[in-house]
């Protein structure tokens, strides 16, 4: 079977969907798994029956994994706070995310290790979303003791999923609101992954380089496009891009991962490193880049796909795009099966799937290869890619964001090539800026000009009547 991973991913997702839409006991799924596994062992010699049973086993595995992810550890902090009791708790643990400072407030995820109430202490685990009413200089892995009231997130929703669902998808069931500096105590020592600490340090350094050469707005746009850091993007810019259906350019995606792989491959080639070592080093660089950008679903997808492609070169095997995509989906869903319902996950996979499925078919139907003018063929191909991605994601966007942007296809014709150029300039700026400040200054002017052009085009496009409408 050529597309084993692709079929497995489909059955795995089906298992997740089935168990999320119907209440099934954990042990029922377990016994079903045992039965199918025994049947697969017995039909070992009959190839057809064996394959069918294995696919059903994968389906059960998906359901089993989701059910398991819903189960909390006995010592999970959520079990200590069954409802909003208003009691003041003392929490010990460490900062588990890069703290974000917005509107003079600090927000971060706190991984708990110990909980205290009225001089009674218990060991615990699980994450809490902490909001400080003041800016505080904190960093990932810093050990803290927090004092405050724990509350459950509100279930308000603007679309299909509520805020509570969104947070529980990230393993967060409780919030802590801290109003005074006296409620937070810093403890000595650091916990956390060294690789993440290194990635965050690298991200801070790269952001510093971008901010050194560019003014606020271009720096914010470039940070989003190259490093996936959207916090500084002005609300209006983001809003305009949502309206024109081009907000995807502000997310690190496969294109960026491809550029990183290409740049490192080129640098290693100049150093005359052998091909196998080059590929392995490129894969390591991709993993570091993935962590540096925050390991969001699109980056993880692109990194896994890139790793599979590169590994295929080492093994001298031909990489199949559907299998690569399925590998990426299985990788993400094996770790966190609930991500299947994440909008970012759905958009990322739907767009790539739509492009890989529809683009070659429509291209051959329209006979684009017969176009003699190269420029015209290039424009038509670009339009077609945008059209395919739009078709693939339109349903998800309309359902979740209640907005339809018919202008998307037209907007992407102008915006995507510009965004590609900006990304290339961005990477050149980051690389040159760290080694040769003079070259960095020159490149930054071109980058700023392209960003200004992009923002102006986008602002003009959404002014076209009927460019977008809310449902």
């Amino acid at each position: 079977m050529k597309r084993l991973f692709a079929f497995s991913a489909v059955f795995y997702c089906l298992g997740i969907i089935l168990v999320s839409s119907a209440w099934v006991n954990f042990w029922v799924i377990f016994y079903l798994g045992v039965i199918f596994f025994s049947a697969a062992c017995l039909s070992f010699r009959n190839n057809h029956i064996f394959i069918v049973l294995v696919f059903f086993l994968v389906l059960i595995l998906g359901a089993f994994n989701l059910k398991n992810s819903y189960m909390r550890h006995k010592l999970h902090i959520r079990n200590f706070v069954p409802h909003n009791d208003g009691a003041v708790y003392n929490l010990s643990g460490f900062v588990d995310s890069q703290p974000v400072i917005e509107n003079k407030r600090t927000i971060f995820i706190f991984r708990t290790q110990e909980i205290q109430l009225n001089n009674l202490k218990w060991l615990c685990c699980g994450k809490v979303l902490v909001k400080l009413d003041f800016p505080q200089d904190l960093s990932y892995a810093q050990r803290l003791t927090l004092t405050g009231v724990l509350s459950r997130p509100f279930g308000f929703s603007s679309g299909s999923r509520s805020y509570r669902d969104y947070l529980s998808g990230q393993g967060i069931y409780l919030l802590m609101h801290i109003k005074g500096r006296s409620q937070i105590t810093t403890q000595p020592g650091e916990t956390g992954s060294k690789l993440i600490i290194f990635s965050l340090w690298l991200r801070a350094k790269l952001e510093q380089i971008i901010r050194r050469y560019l003014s606020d707005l271009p720096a914010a746009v470039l940070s989003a496009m190259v490093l996936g850091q959207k916090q500084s993007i002005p609300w209006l810019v983001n809003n305009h891009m949502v309206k024109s259906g081009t907000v995807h350019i502000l997310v690190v995606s496969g294109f960026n991962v491809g550029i990183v792989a290409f740049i490192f491959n080129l640098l290693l080639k100049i150093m005359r490193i052998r091909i196998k070592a080059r590929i392995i080093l490129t894969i390591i660089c991709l993993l570091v880049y993935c962590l540096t950008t925050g390991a969001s679903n699109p980056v993880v997808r692109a990194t896994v796909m890139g790793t599979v492609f590169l590994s295929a070169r080492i093994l001298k095997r031909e990489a199949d795009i559907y299998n690569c995509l399925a590998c990426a989906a299985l990788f993400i869903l094996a770790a966190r099966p609930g991500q299947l319902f994440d909008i970012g996950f759905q958009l990322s996979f739907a767009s790539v799937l739509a492009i890989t499925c529809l683009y070659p078919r429509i291209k051959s139907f329209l006979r684009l290869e017969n176009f003699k003018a190269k420029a015209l063929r290039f424009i038509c191909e670009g339009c077609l890619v945008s059209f395919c991605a739009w078709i693939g994601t339109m349903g998800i966007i309309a359902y979740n964001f209640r907005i339809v942007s018919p202008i998307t296809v037209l907007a992407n014709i102008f915006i995507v090539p510009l965004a590609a150029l900006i990304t290339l300039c961005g990477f050149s700026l980051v690389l040159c800026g760290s080694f040769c400040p003079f070259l960095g200054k020159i490149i930054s002017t071109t980058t700023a000009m392209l960003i200004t052009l992009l923002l102006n085009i986008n602002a003009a496009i959404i002014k076209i009547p009927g460019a977008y409408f809310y449902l």
Partner: protein
Amino acid sequence: MLNFTREEKRVILFLVLISFCGITLNNLAKMNYRIKKLFCPQVHLARINLNKASLEELISSRCLPVKTSRRIIEYRLKNGDFSSLETLKKVKGVGDKRYEKLREIFFVE
């Protein structure tokens, strides 16, 4: 000698091109100040002008309740343009917390 592929040659050309473009722009900006607009984005691209925004624009921005948007327009009609963004606090419904958020969205010219 290194054997560069077509793609690698393109990278080299690309780097040369953007450097060339950057130097030219820098030079032009020195001669004519207006050229700077080409690589310094205008503030209206990132924020809404509070003195020029219509009621529809304020409502469609979805960052203010409809009532507060109306009050802003009424305030503008009654007292003229906002002299500074701080004046926004005088509008009923805009407290310190909301002002902090709106500060990132609006500007006054």
